């Protein structure tokens, strides 16, 4: 059967090959993008695992070492500082990236921090550490640019006392396995999952639609096979084999294409750093499963597309007025939007439950957009055809009304991502922020360090008004000073000499995590948008080429009857542009509308420029993809001897 399928595939003629090529390209692109989304999850897990050793598991009775993690700052960057002390009970474990457990006074720095310590004046960084004992290996850092310091201390060091403002308090440990990803990377992993759903769903829909291309071209040939006595089972096996042969080739090429793209993709910065090449290559079993599952799904999709031929050997595609989609879908969306707007102010005050409710309602709104999409496409088609004054507009409108689901499939990714992008675009602050003139500096320390620290602060910051707050088991000292990075770094270096482990944190530093996360979310949204645009471009090109092949005889005959090609091209352009602008733009508008109450509540504005730019580029890209099929139309129209086949 596979042999016969291979014969049919090879002997399909130029047009048969072209439709197989369309399926092949569609499967290759789908596979490459699915690999990318899967790899994204693996990449965050890799980073999460590398962050795990700083999130220690407490060993109550068997502790051989004590570990505390704090966050320090230099040159507006974060340094993760890990303090380690041997308890003296047994042999302490060897930390990742080091050759031995550090003795008190030993300091190990990650390569980027080591370089920075050499580049900056000593009083801004190097003096905090004294003599450097070694450079940490890559496995100690989450990513290639992370600033990490491991400092050996004695068990009674003040660096191990009290809960840190940022980081992990002193914990007795017996190994460096850790509790899994840091809190920050757990958040990243969660966002990556959401992005995966946003990218994979339209990809699978598109891949499935592409699979049916192979079948559509072969309807009549398969009907002929049925007429000469092939059983339905044989026809199904033949088609599945043929579609899967194409899909396996597409999946392998798509995987290779993804592998070739990794050197470029690694430059997508998350958490302020590019990726290791190995981070972006998924586990072997995930690669194998993707290459196996995608052709399988293509095969299933092909079987679904074949049902008509299998049922009747005389089954011939006939087009009827499609049943209308019900307006109740629109009501569901409107109800959800109204509910969201009514509830939005309450979400803010509801904490974790509010967040869950908000995410759930956002998900429901996404689902409703997916329900409404085809209905709106159909409606747009009817209105366009009704108002049409030109032949091309009439054609475009009728085609939209005729098959709104396939049009929606092509642009669903854009519309769904447009919604998210609209929502996020409003909430994200612009990156260009006017620097504050003053910063508020906080220093948390054990109570018995207060005297030394406050003495140092009074001496270093003579004009500062210092306030001291007594916490449960520590003291926080706070003062306001000029936002001068170099001066603050010098202050921090001096502080390290006065009180081991005391860290000065400014209010800007406190927001650094949140700002980075928001910035990364925006990067993520732009990446998802770019992927969606890519899906829409390939989808538009494949659907356009497929539609030309489906109607090649009609187009050719229309050309013979004097219809200019520009009319047909104009119809195809409008067919793409009209729903894209209305639905893509509409989805962004819905996202913006839902985000506005939060934007007003939190004072966030801006971030919309990048969104608009991406959306505009996407629109041009999709129109370009539609125009890319012009040569095919021209070749079909030039065929002066059209024959039904």
């Amino acid at each position: 059967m596979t042999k016969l399928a291979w014969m049919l595939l090879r002997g399909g003629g130029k047009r048969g090959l072209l439709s197989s090529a369309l399926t092949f390209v569609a499967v290759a692109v789908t596979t490459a993008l699915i690999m990318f989304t899967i790899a994204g999850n693996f990449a965050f897990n890799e980073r999460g695992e590398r962050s795990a050793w700083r999130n220690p598991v407490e060993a109550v009775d068997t502790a051989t070492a004590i570990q505390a993690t704090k966050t320090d700052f230099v040159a507006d960057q974060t340094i993760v500082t890990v303090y380690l002390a041997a308890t003296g009970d047994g042999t302490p474990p060897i930390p990742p990236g080091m050759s031995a457990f550090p003795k008190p006074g030993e300091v190990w720095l990650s390569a980027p921090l080591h370089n920075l310590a050499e580049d900056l004046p000593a009083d801004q960084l190097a003096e905090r550490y004294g003599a450097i004992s070694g450079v940490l290996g890559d496995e100690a850092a989450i990513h290639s640019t992370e600033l990490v310091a491991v400092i050996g201390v004695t068990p009674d060091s003040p660096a191990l006392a009290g809960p840190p403002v940022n980081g992990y308090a002193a914990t007795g440990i017996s190994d460096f396995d850790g509790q899994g990803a840091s809190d920050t990377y757990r958040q990243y992993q969660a966002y990556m999952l959401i992005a995966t759903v946003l990218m994979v769903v339209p990809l699978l829909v598109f891949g499935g639609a592409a699979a049916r291309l192979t079948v559509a071209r072969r309807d009549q040939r398969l009907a002929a096979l049925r007429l000469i006595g092939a059983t339905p089972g044989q026809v199904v096996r033949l088609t599945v084999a043929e579609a899967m042969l194409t899909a396996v080739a597409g999946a392998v090429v798509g995987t290779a294409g993804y592998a070739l793209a990794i050197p470029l993709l690694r430059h997508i910065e998350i958490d302020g750093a590019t990726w290791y090449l190995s981070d972006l290559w998924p586990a072997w079993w995930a690669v194998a499963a993707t290459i196996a599952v995608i052709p399988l799904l293509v095969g299933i999709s092909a079987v679904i597309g074949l049902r008509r031929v299998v049922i009747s050997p005389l089954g011939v595609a006939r087009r009827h007025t499609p049943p209308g989609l019900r307006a109740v879908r629109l009501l569901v969306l409107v109800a959800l939007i109204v509910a969201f707007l009514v509830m939005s102010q309450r979400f803010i005050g509801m904490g974790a439950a509010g967040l869950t409710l908000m995410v759930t309602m956002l998900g429901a709104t996404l689902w409703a957009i997916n329900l409404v999409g085809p209905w709106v496409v159909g409606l747009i088609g009817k209105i366009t055809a009704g108002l049409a004054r030109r032949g091309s507009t009439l054609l475009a409108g009728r085609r939209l009304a005729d098959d709104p689901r396939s049009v929606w499939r092509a642009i669903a990714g854009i519309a769904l991502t447009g919604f998210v992008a609209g929502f996020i675009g409003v909430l994200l602050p612009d990156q260009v922020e006017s620097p504050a003139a003053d910063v508020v500096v906080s220093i948390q320390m054990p109570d018995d360090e207060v005297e030394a620290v406050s003495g140092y602060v009074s001496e270093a910051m003579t004009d500062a008004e210092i306030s001291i707050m007594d916490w449960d088991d520590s003291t926080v000292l706070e003062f306001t000073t000029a936002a001068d990075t170099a001066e603050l770094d010098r202050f921090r270096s001096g502080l390290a000499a006065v009180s081991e482990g005391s860290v000065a944190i400014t209010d800007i530093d406190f927001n650094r995590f949140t700002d980075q996360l928001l910035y990364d979310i925006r990067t993520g949204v732009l990446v998802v948008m770019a992927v969606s645009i890519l899906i829409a471009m390939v989808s538009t090109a494949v659907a356009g080429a497929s539609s030309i092949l489906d109607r090649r005889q009609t187009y050719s005959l229309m050309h013979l009857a004097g219809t200019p090609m520009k009319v047909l091209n104009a119809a195809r352009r409008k067919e793409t542009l009209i729903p894209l602008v209305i639905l893509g733009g509409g989805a962004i508008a819905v996202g913006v509308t839902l985000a506005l109450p939060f934007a007003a509540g939190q004072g966030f504005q801006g971030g919309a420029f990048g969104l608009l730019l991406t959306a505009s580029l996407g629109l041009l890209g999709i129109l370009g993809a539609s125009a890319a099929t012009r040569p095919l139309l021209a070749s079909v129209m030039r065929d002066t001897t059209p024959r039904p086949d």
Partner: protein
Amino acid sequence: MTEEVMSGRGLVKNFGSTTALAGVDFTVHRGETVAIMGPSGSGKSTLLHCLAGIMRPDSGEVNLMGQRIDSLSETQRSRLRRTRFGFLFQFGQLLPELSAEENVALPMLLDGSDKSGALQAARAWFSSLGLSGLERRRPGELSGGQAQRVALARALVTGPIVLFADEPTGALDQASGAETMQTLIKATKGQGSSLVLVTHDANIAAYCDRVVEVRDGKLTSLSAPAVAATAQPGVW
């Protein structure tokens, strides 16, 4: 003899080393219906394509109403085909997305007519071709014969000088074919257009005023009785 509307003189067309037309002279008069017969590969479709300005002959000339058309640009010939000629093919010329009346109105819409006027003109053809009630149907909801009559309405709606038909009944059963031919001849003559019909079937050719045969790229006239001896309209 009525006025000559179209002529081809000394038409030669080669495809590589194969000669499709080897110096063909052909004329059509106003209101005349001419059938071009010939076996497969004889060059009859090539002759139709050359006359209709779809392809250019290698030598010779084609005139319409005394004006040479084979030397026009592709754009000019496209416009000519759209406005002065009508076309009817075996099947497949209707756009599946458009209703029957929109398909008929399409040539006028493409030429800039306003939609309501174009649809009104289109609807007038439905009653005259016995298609009343089918205006809103899609091509997929029409029988083969009905679809051919809709295509005929589309070919005639612009009032062409010459209607070219290439095996117009080739995909129809006997009864539908006869019905379509009768409608085609009646409607074409009714509005004073000329018909050039390509067929390999003598029964179909017999509906026309004159029959010519292309064989090995040359044209020979068949006398009407010669055709009538082997076939009668409607008797297949």
